[in-house]
């Protein structure tokens, strides 16, 4: 957005051109205002009211919703589950994607094939995939437990036991995220000049690990930073797999932030409270973005 606005700034002796520029970015500006900024603002305002769906009136209750959030057991569980989910999905899918990207990059053949194979989960429909996972992880007739039984291991009830449900959902999350991260890392890897590796070799760095540590990893910094941020934001947003597979159960073991927001707003009709949860979610996402732009950005860009 800011780039397009900058382009539209009037230049010397180009009044007509500036006007045309302004007109050209008007549709996008309007859409941005109407579809993004205004609804966000409405949600922010709602968060400070006690509005309920269908209620004739609403009252300004200030921080009332947030005070209730602090004491709400369900919200605390959802927040904790979301953090656990992110702390599993983000590191594993990032490290896994990097390892795969290095392997594929080093491969002599089949690069396109592997790229496509690992990218498939990203373009597939999450709800349809969730149904496939439900079958795969079925405790009694699912293939996963059937394979485990071959080795004499009694597989757990992956998605229907409160001990394993979050782990299973995290695994599905990793499966979804890894292909996306892989493509980003592959793009980052191709941007590293080959000469640097050759120079390192000439300088006596012979082990592959040392070359990775001294050349690839530092030069991959900006990519890694972007991948870390986007993966964490995407993981905080987990919703469809929970809504389709577990509905937050059993006994709230897979209740996550956005699912709580959904049930508060659309099952219990409490839109004000639901908006307050949305604000918490927004704050987390904004904090992650700040972390990227303010803190880490300085440490990965050289020169």
């Amino acid at each position: 957005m800011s780039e397009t606005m900058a382009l539209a700034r009037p230049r010397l002796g180009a009044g007509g051109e500036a006007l045309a520029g302004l007109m050209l970015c008007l549709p996008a500006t309007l859409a941005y205002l109407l579809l993004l900024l205004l609804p966000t603002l409405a949600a922010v305002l709602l968060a400070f009211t006690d509005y309920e769906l269908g209620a004739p009136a609403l009252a300004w209750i200030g921080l009332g919703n947030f005070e209730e959030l602090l004491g709400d057991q369900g919200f605390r569980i959802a927040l904790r589950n979301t953090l656990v989910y992110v702390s599993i999905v983000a590191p594993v899918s990032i490290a896994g994607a990097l390892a795969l990207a290095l392997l594929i990059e080093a491969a002599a053949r089949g690069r396109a094939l592997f790229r496509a194979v690992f990218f498939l989960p990203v373009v597939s429909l999450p709800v349809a995939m969730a149904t496939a996972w439900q079958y795969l992880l079925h405790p009694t007739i699912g293939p996963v437990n059937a394979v485990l039984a071959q080795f004499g291991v009694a597989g757990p009830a992956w998605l229907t036991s409160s001990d394993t449900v979050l782990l299973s959902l995290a695994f599905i999350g990793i499966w979804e995220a890894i292909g996306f991260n892989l493509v980003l890392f592959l793009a980052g890897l191709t941007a590293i000049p080959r000469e640097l590796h050759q120079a390192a070799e000439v300088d006596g760095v012979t082990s592959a690990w040392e070359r990775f540590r001294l050349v690839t990893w530092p030069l991959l910094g900006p990519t890694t930073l972007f991948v870390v941020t986007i993966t964490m934001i995407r993981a905080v947003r987990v919703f469809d797999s929970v809504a389709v597979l577990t509905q937050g159960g059993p006994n709230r073991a897979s209740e996550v932030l956005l699912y709580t927001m959904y049930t508060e707003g659309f099952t219990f009709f409490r839109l004000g409270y639901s908006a307050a949860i949305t604000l918490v979610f927004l704050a987390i996402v904004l904090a992650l973005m700040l972390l990227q732009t303010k803190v880490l950005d300085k440490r990965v860009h050289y020169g």
Partner: protein
Amino acid sequence: MTIRLTRRAVLALPAALALPGLARAQQPVEITVHYAQPFIFKPSYDAITEAFARVEPNIRINYVTSPGYPEGTQLLLRQAATNQLPDLSFQGLNLLRVFAERGIAQDLMPFVTRDGAPAAQGYSEGLLSLGRFSNYQAGLPYAASTAITFLNADLARRAGFDPDNLPTDWDGHIRLAAAVKERAGGADGMWFAWSEWMFQTLVLGHGGRMMTPDERDIAFDGAEGLATLRLHDRYVRETQMPALNANTASQAFAAGRLGAFYWTTAVVRNFIQSVGQGFDFRTLPLPVVAGVPNGTLATGGAAGMMTARDPAKREAAWKFLRFATSPQGQALMAMNSGYVPCNQLAIDDPQYLGAFYRQNPLFQAAVTQMARQAPWFAFPGSNGVRITQAITNNTARVIESKATPEVALADMATEVRRLLPRRS
């Protein structure tokens, strides 16, 4: 939510235009009817609409649906606030209370008595009580469901039981499930579809109640509630009941890997399709609690409530509701869903469903336990859904062996008391 014209209504339009004389003779009326759970109910409403159009060609019906009962309640509450209510709405039997307490549902008794004594029309006292809240007839039951036993008779036989002479109480069924688990080649013995509704079903089955008659306090935290949770505990410990949910358990049952499945009769149609010829599939009444002769069953299902304001539309809406709950309408409903009919004449007079039940014995289990149907208790106040969740969540703790029945029941009682409206 979808809004659609019925095929018949669309076809009726050119016909009405072509016959102006007939159309003038009786003004066509258009009414909007709302119902929930189209994936279960659509065939039954389609059949009734078609039959109704033959009797009342001048009444056109526009349908509005919502995916589940709670969504339907939410939709109607929102529409009530914005004055956009449909003319007739079919709501979950336990959610009708919400509309009775707010005065949104109109009293149906004046309509019913206009056509004679209620019992003579098939509206027996027991059926009417399912839709009576706040001391008035807020709804007329359209479909009733109770929990039944879905049995894999092949597995029962392999476990050494005679499927024609199975025990009828829970102790016997637990023995059956344990035997299936042990002897039927790795299949699981049973799955009980634990939820608030099933909790209530067992509390009523033990002769207990959810709240005291004056609704000043809960009543499920006594001996009957404890016995209910202990029964859940026994399913897990004595039959090694697997950790499933309704979806995965249905899949396991259809795959022939589950001896017995205790759930609502509403899914019998879907089960017949998913099981196919896979095994000897039977349905039986829900096991009873030994020594409790007066045990009852929580009755799920839907009831039609009147919300029309315009007199002409109200008259047309009543005609449709009367038809849908008539012996003929209820016979169509029963044949096109798995539910129990809500008209005594449709049940007693074999001309309506006699032949159907003879040819489709799987539909009969719920009918045989009709005499034990009791209202699905709806908690007062605005926290109904939360209370339901609190009961379900604490039941889950027993199912997962994370809490003893005693602890779970005490926590359940505390949570529900906090969610009930305060009384001075």
